[in-house]
């Protein structure tokens, strides 16, 4: 009976991941879509100059956003099995996608709050805060840490 106890925990955590984790993920994706549709008119570019820049507007400013998303137990479990057979780890794909989209949205929201209507030179980087690069053996849970940077400016939108 004793050996069933850890197994019970594992099953409980898997269920937690399955029910709570996927629910959290779904509602995050819904939230991302809602906010993205709010900012459709915002000009986001990845080039390092200033398209449609309005002359005489206030000076450009750097904007930054960070997002760290944790994976759930079920995802880690699935990824472990995927590791044995190789192939695409879809659950982690979605985790990275969430962190990136959230970061870009936060850039847009930060820029908008300061009265800008465009950002350019968007850069996305991953940060290693779990320390999995320096000590890969310590088997920390996976997480996606994305740092986004861009320059906000005022664009005279081409009339549409």
């Amino acid at each position, binding site marked *: 009976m004793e050996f069933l106890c850890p197994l019970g925990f594992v099953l409980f*955590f898997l269920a*937690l*991941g399955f029910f*709570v*984790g996927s629910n*959290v*993920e779904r509602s*995050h994706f819904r939230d991302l879509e809602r906010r993205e549709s709010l900012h459709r008119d915002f000009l986001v570019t990845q080039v*390092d*100059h*200033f398209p449609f*820049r309005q*002359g*005489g*507007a206030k*000076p*450009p*400013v*750097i904007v*930054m956003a*960070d*997002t*760290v*998303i*944790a*994976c*759930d*137990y079920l*995802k*880690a479990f699935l990824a472990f099995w995927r590791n044995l057979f190789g192939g695409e780890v879809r659950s982690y794909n979605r*985790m990275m996608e969430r962190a990136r989209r*959230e970061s870009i949205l936060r850039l847009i929201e930060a820029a908008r709050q300061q009265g800008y209507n465009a950002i*350019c*030179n968007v*850069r996305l*980087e991953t*940060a*290693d*805060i779990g*320390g*999995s*690069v*320096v*000590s890969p053996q*310590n088997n*920390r*849970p996976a*997480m996606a*840490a994305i*740092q986004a*940077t*861009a*320059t906000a*400016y005022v664009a005279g939108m081409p009339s549409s």
Partner: protein
Amino acid sequence: MIVTNTESIAGYRIVALKGLVQGNTVRAKHAGRDIAAGLKNLVGGELKGYTELLTESRRQAMERMLQQAQQLGANAVVNVRFTTSAVTAGAAELYAYGTAVVVEPEATA
């Protein structure tokens, strides 16, 4: 002080180069955050503590960079880049660097 991560600043002209400026900070996560993160890793979702940690460290590194730029007599920093490096398992370094310049507004036609 105008700070951008682009090479130039629209509407401004670079009139003098002051050289590379940099700032860094090594931050350790405190144990409370680690425990909270451990719990969050069961159900997924955002690790707000870590997000704040990253944002704080970025701000700190940038502040140090701006101090240097000010000492050099610059009024803008262009092409700012951030990198992180994991120093040990418990701590991460955030490094900000850019080019300090003196700019003046372009004569608007």
